């Protein structure tokens, strides 16, 4: 099956700097929602601009439904784009904004008003057609931007940090809205964000970018459970990362001491990065049991349902997420919680 949006070995460099994206390949299947995430300057917005046609790649091909559109104008690509600050036309009403793509396509006023009304209904803004954008809240403006981008039945949807300008409470609600609307239109979507919660909760697949390179693209659970490297592990979710050296078939030496692990099949002496997710550490009642270490609490954060503690243990720092309310003096590392990553 051909991807709705395909990027093949695309390279783009900003003039006079190392920034850009390098030999990046990514495919978005029809109806799929891919969230592209990474620290600022990683190239995620550049990727969106390359797909949109605002930038032209130095090398590589951009395809829409298999058709090579590299070098084609923005207009001809027919992609629905939602900009970070919404970019609603301030002098047009909500209805005129949403009808604008239909207006430039020469659709008659009554027909485009009807279609714009339908699209507004889809985003939950029926009855707002005659308002001006400035009269709406941030969340409502966001919906208008989404409606306008969808009004002309685009080939795919590109969302550039669409929720970053909203306050925290609105953002979480809008996340579900974006997902619902994207599902109902069954439209291939690329969403750019730097918010890992947004990525985890929205995406069919998450693409992680770092310094212009695609580090990993996989479903959220796979990114979390089998991160490609220490960067991904630390960027999505919380992570304890410790340098280690394989000491036996089921042992690894770490700053904490020797850790028992499941059988791993790695040769003794190999250097690895040990990943232990904070929620998989256990509070232990006493020392003595295998993989149990005495710790000192350096920071204790109470979140209601859970507690997050920073621990010091033989010069290493550990973070634990626990349901326990009591004192934490010892922690146990369950062998099955130990994962190995390539050292960076």
């Amino acid at each position, binding site marked *: 099956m051909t991807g709705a949006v395909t990027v093949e070995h695309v390279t783009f460099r900003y003039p006079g700097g190392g920034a850009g994206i390098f030999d990046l390949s990514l495919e978005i299947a029809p109806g799929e929602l891919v969230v592209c995430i990474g620290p600022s300057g990683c190239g995620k917005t550049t990727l969106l601009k390359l797909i949109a046609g605002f930038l032209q790649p130095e090398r590589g091909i951009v395809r829409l439904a298999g058709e090579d559109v590299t070098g084609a104008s923005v*207009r001809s690509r027919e992609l629905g*784009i939602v900009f970070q*600050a919404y970019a609603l*036309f301030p002098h047009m009403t909500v209805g005129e904004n949403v009808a*604008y*793509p239909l*207006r*430039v396509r020469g659709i008659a006023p009554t027909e485009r008003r009807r279609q714009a009304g339908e699209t507004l209904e889809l985003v939950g803004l029926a009855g707002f057609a005659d308002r001006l954008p400035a009269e709406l809240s941030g969340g409502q403006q966001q919906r208008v931007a989404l409606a306008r*981008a969808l009004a*002309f039945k685009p080939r795919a949807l590109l969302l550039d940090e669409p929720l970053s300008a909203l306050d925290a409470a609105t953002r979480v609600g809008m996340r579900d809205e974006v997902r619902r609307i994207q599902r109902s239109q069954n439209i291939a979507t690329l969403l750019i964000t730097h918010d890992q919660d947004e990525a985890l909760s929205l995406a069919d697949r998450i693409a992680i970018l770092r310094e212009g390179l695609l580090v990993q693209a996989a479903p959220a659970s796979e990114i979390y459970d089998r991160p490609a490297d220490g960067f991904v592990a630390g960027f999505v979710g919380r992570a304890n990362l410790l340098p280690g050296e394989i000491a036996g078939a089921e042992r690894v030496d770490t700053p904490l001491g020797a850790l028992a692990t499941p059988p791993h099949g790695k040769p003794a002496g190999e250097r690895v990065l040990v990943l232990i997710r904070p929620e998989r550490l256990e509070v232990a009642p006493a020392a003595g049991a295998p993989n149990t270490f005495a710790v000192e609490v350096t920071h204790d954060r109470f979140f209601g349902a859970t507690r997050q503690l920073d621990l010091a243990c033989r010069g290493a720092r550990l973070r634990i997420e626990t349901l326990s309310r009591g004192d934490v003096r010892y922690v146990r590392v369950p062998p099955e919680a130990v994962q190995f990553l390539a050292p960076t």
Partner: protein
Amino acid sequence: MLPRWVTVAYLAYLVAPILLLLVGSFGGLWLNTLLPTGFTGRWYLEVAADPSFRRAFNASLFVAAATGAACLAIGLPLAYAVFRAQSPAVRAAARALYLLPIALPALVLAFGFILVFSSDTLPWLGSIWLLVAGHAVLCVPYFLQAVVTDMQRLGLATLEDAADSLGSRPLQRFFHIVLPALRHSILSGLIVVAALSIGEFQFSNLVAGFLNRTYPVVLLQAFYGATGFACAATVILLALALSASALGAWSAGGAATLAFHRR
């Protein structure tokens, strides 16, 4: 308490000369007294009957209107070009260049015009179009400043990118997005231009030909005659400047609305 008194004092200082002008323009005789004696409307009638004032009045209106049109025709594309320039260095240089006339005394421009246009190859000194050209040079910076600032405030580049992605062609973007979104700053820019052009004296005094002297140039001579006449003539200039601004605002508003509703 103090800020209020400062404000009141400043306003009084601002309004007093205008009030005195008004009083003087309706006063009968005003020699060595604090206020004039008697009430009369004859000064206005005299100004209205004076052919040189009538001609100057019309010349000023024409020059202001033509300067406004020139600012639109030159300033709008220029503002757009400066705003869309890729390189920050180019933007900074363009900005410095177009703001230059503000720093330069109008006198310098006038001398330049006299030098160039009194020659045999370009013998245009005294033409009303030369006056318009000079006013345009003096006024375009103010117009550009208003419009470019608004373009940045609106994030016009992103609005255009959005329109582009929605299928809008360059010309459609200009008429559907750029022009209507900028209508407020175009309007206020034209108001400033009209007021500046109507009140301009330095340049016009040197460059205007005898038959198309603008109102302020002719006004200067009024002060050699009766005080009441001079006051009435000045009040007319004030009214002219204010109404030119209003007219500029109204016409620009009309043009923008027209462009906005074009389908």
